[in-house]
C-alpha cells in the first residue's frame, strides 16, 4: 500500500535542492518517517507553514524506497507557531523534538511517544508550566516509555524503600548506602523529590520547588539522558531557563 495517512509531529526539517525540504516526522502508527516535501520553501507553498517543527499534522504520504513523499497535510494543532514566540519554550521544544527523534525507531508504532510529545508541546504552547520543568518531565517520561524508567525513591538495585541520599546514573536511579558505588551523585532529597514529582506528573509539588533544586535536577536528567542515548542531545546546551 504505497499511499498512507497518519497523524504526525514534525520533528526536524532539512533543506533539499532549490525549494524542497526533507521532513522528519514522528508518526503515530509508523514511528519515525523521513519524507520529501516538494516546493515547501516557496512563499506560495500550501504545505510550508504546516510542516514546521512542533506542528501536529494529519499527513498523507506516498511510500518510497528510501524517502516517502508528502502529498497532503492538514494541521491538527499548530503548537510550533505558539512556541516560537517564546524563546525559552522554543529551546525546550527543540530538545524535546531531538530526544524523540533519537528514541523512536523507523517504521515501528510509537503511540506512547507520540502522545507524550504532543502533550509536552501542548504544555509549552499553552504556557501551562515553567518551560524547563516541562522539558525535564518530558525527558524522564520519554526515557521511561523507552524502557529506562528511573527510580527517585526506592533503591534501584535492591528495592530498599527510600528516600535515599545517593543517585547513580548508570544504575538507573536512587541507591541505598549498601548498594552505593563510587561515582554516585549525592543530590539534595528535595531534588530527588522534584524529579519524582515530574515523572509522576505531580505539578503542584514541582511548581513549588526551589531554583537550586531545579538546577541540580536538570543536571541529573541531562546525565541520565546522555547515559542512555550514549551521546548528548545538542539542543540541551542551548536551552534557556528563566
Amino acid at each position, binding site marked *: 500500500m504505497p499511499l498512507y495517512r497518519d497523524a504526525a509531529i514534525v520533528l*526536524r526539517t532539512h533543506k533539499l*535542492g*532549490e525549494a524542497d525540504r526533507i521532513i522528519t516526522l514522528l508518526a503515530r502508527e509508523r514511528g519515525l518517517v523521513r519524507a520529501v516535501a516538494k516546493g515547501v520553501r516557496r*512563499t*506560495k507553498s*500550501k*504545505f*510550508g*507553514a*504546516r510542516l*514546521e*517543527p*512542533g506542528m501536529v499534522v494529519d499527513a498523507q504520504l506516498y511510500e518510497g524506497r528510501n524517502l516517502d513523499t508528502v502529498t497532503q497535510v492538514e*494541521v491538527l494543532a*499548530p503548537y*510550533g*507557531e505558539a*512556541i*516560537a*514566540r*517564546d*524563546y525559552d519554550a*522554543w*529551546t525546550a521544544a*527543540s*530538545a524535546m*523534538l*531531538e530526544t524523540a527523534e533519537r528514541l523512536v525507531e523507523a517504521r515501528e508504532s510509537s503511540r506512547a511517544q507520540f502522545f507524550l510529545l504532543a502533550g509536552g508541546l501542548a504544555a509549552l504552547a499553552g504556557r501551562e508550566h515553567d518551560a524547563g520543568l516541562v522539558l525535564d518531565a518530558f525527558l524522564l517520561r520519554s526515557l521511561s516509555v523507552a524502557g529506562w524508567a528511573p527510580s527517585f525513591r526506592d533503591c534501584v538495585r535492591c528495592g530498599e524503600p527510600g528516600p535515599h541520599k545517593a543517585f547513580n546514573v548508570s544504575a538507573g536511579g536512587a541507591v541505598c548506602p549498601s548498594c552505593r558505588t563510587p561515582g554516585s551523585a549525592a543530590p539534595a532529597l528535595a531534588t530527588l523529590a522534584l524529579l519524582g514529582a515530574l515523572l509522576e506528573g505531580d505539578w503542584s509539588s514541582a511548581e513549588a520547588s526551589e531554583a537550586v533544586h531545579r538546577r541540580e535536577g536538570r543536571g541529573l536528567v541531562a546525565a541520565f539522558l546522555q547515559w542512555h542515548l550514549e551521546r548528548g542531545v*545538542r*539542543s540541551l*546546551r*542551548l*536551552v534557556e531557563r528563566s
Partner: protein
Amino acid sequence: MYEGAVQDLIDELGHLPGVGPKSAQRIAFHLLVADEDEVKRLVDALVQVKSRVRFCAVCGNVAEAETCRICSDDRRDASLICVVEEPKDVVAVERTREFRGRYHVLGGAISPMEGVGPDDLSIAQLFTRLADGSVTEVIIATDPNLEGEATATYLARALGTMGVRVSRLASGLPVGGDLEYADEITLGRAFEGRRLIHA
C-alpha cells in the same frame, strides 16, 4: 566511472550544493565541448570571487572592499537597520526598492537542533553597532519559518533593553494568490497583522 581529469572534474562538481552525480556529469561534458574562452572566463570568475570577495566588516554582507557598497553609501539612512539571515536576503530586500536603510547579516538563524545558538551568529556585532545610539529602528527580516521566528523573538527580547524600536516584517498572503488556497497559519498571521484602510 571515467578516468583522470574528467572524473576529477565530475567529483569536484559533485561537491557543490544541489549538484548530484548526474548533474555533475552533464556539466563536466558541457565544459569538455565548450569553447576554450568560455571555460577560461568561468575559471577567472571562480578565482576572482575567492580572491576579491570578503564579508563586510560592518554588516557581514558580501563585499569587495573593507565595507560593502551599502555601508559605504552616505545616502542610505543610517538610523534604520534591517536584520537578515544571509547575504542573499539583502539582494531580495533591495529588489523591493522600498528600504533605504542599512543591513545586518546574522549568518543564519538560531537552531538548537543543529547546535547553532546566539553566540554562533553575529548578534554581538549588531549590539556594537547600536551602542552609539544613532540607530532608531531595527527591522527583523529573518525567514518566515519557525527558526526565523524564534530568532526574531530572541532579538526582540535582547534589543528591548537597548531603547531602540524593534519591528518585524509583516507576514501574510502572497500577492497574486487566491485566498481559498492559503493555509490557516499564513491566513491567521494575515489577520493578526491586518492594516486599517478606513477608520
